[in-house]
């Protein structure tokens, strides 16, 4: 089975891209299931179930970081898809700019909007650099020259394929579909591509005081490098 992991900042158009992709893949006879991982609200599962008629689930990460939650639930989700004989498309919350949800052997797609500012590719780190394909959406809203400079900034940050799309009108989607069709099947064991940064600290645990003096673990001051304080 193929595993498609889709990430990207909120409102970049992940759902719109995936909806167009799923519609085309279904027409070509592929069987698909969809999982949405989000923090506290998502209704995309209903859209994929009702409008496109594929098995769909959602997971709320709540107090957990959504990319950590994805690591925990993805094993079960892959089994769920395998049991029904479908490929699995996972749409992540796209909030964290330090983690990336991609798995070795999955096809990692990052969705970025052309309107999001020229420096975005340099700001989002692993979400972009560990992806296989960047899909640039909303290309109808910027000039061709800006589109080309944005593409150059993506390629400066990561050596990956860049596809441009106007997902609302379904333009540029066929090329992404061809890439997905060429993607390999996943192999076990399933391993996360990038290591997430430290996730357990006094702030995660609910201690809300401002200033490093109040905390333990890996810390830093405004001017220092990282240091460790604690037992």
């Amino acid at each position, binding site marked *: 089975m193929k595993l498609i992991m889709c990430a990207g900042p909120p409102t970049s158009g992940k759902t719109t891209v995936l909806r167009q992709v799923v519609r085309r893949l279904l027409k070509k006879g592929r069987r698909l299931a969809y999982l949405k991982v989000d923090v506290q609200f998502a209704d995309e599962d209903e859209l994929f179930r009702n409008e496109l008629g594929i098995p769909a689930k959602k997971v709320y990460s709540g107090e957990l970081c959504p990319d950590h939650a994805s690591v925990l639930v993805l094993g079960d989700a892959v089994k769920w898809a395998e049991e029904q004989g479908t490929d699995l498309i996972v749409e992540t919350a796209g909030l964290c700019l330090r983690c990336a949800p991609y798995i070795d052997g999955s096809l990692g797609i990052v969705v970025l909007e052309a*309107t999001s*500012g*020229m420096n975005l590719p340099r700001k989002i780190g692993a979400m972009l650099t560990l992806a296989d394909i960047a899909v640039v959406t909303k290309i*109808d*809203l*910027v*000039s*061709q*020259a*800006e589109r*080309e*400079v944005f*593409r*150059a*900034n993506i390629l400066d940050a990561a050596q990956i*394929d*860049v596809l*441009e799309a106007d997902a609302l*009108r*379904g*333009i*540029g*989607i*066929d*090329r992404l579909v061809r890439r997905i069709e060429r993607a390999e099947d996943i192999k076990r064991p399933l391993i996360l591509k990038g290591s997430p940064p430290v996730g357990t600290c006094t702030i995660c645990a609910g201690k809300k005081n401002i200033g490093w003096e109040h905390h333990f673990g890996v810390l830093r001051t405004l001017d220092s490098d990282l240091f460790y304080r604690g037992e």
Partner: protein
Amino acid sequence: MEIKKITILGGYGRNGEKEQVDQVDLGMGELLSVVGPTGSGKTALINDIGLFADEDTPSRRRILINDAAPSEDFLDDPAKNPIALITQHTGFLSDMKVSHFLDIHARVRKRGNPDSVVADILDFANQLTGEPIILDSTMTELSGGQSRALLIADAVIIGNSPIILLDEIENAGINLTRALEMLRKYEKIFIFVTHDPRITLSSDYRIVMKGGAMQDAITTSPEEKRIGEKVTDMDKIIVGLRDRISSGEHMLEKEFQAIMELVWLT
């Protein structure tokens, strides 16, 4: 790759019916206007061309270059893209200096020495604008007219593209007559989306759009071309009036009468 010809193969209009015009061929050096009321699908047509539509846009049109399906390289590598599309956007979103933006774009399109290219672009663009563009300003500070002037100069000089698509440049707040004169010095295929009779009547052909479909393709007659020149003269008078009023002059009825008589004489 030398571009000799571009072909538009008709698809379907919004009502799902096949377009009346099933094929349009344009050779190097030819000018085409796309006309029709707002909402008739003019911009969608040039976007199809700019994206090398291959039955993968809502119109299901196809674009051929030199009678063959365009290479995927055109979309993946801006340096190989033979088309420059100047959209109606008159605002930039890039919060970067004009010089930095042009530097990157020249590098992407692999255009010679960036310093001289940037100087050439500024020179070209500033002939079209009222207030000159300053290299140290950020892109977001440029006015609508300055943005469009910069994009046109960018397409011609950095793009150096053999096929140039321009969406309603008459609305750009730039000196249109000057822009047309400057553009025509270049041997290229030009496609204009336009409501302006000067542009339409000086083109070799015009496509008339309706309901998202190419309704008719008309070859401009020699008679129409002559009318086009007269319309350009009329426009020069209007532009002259506009410039005088804009610079704070007072107008007199007597003087206006004299100008109107001049119009009748032509």
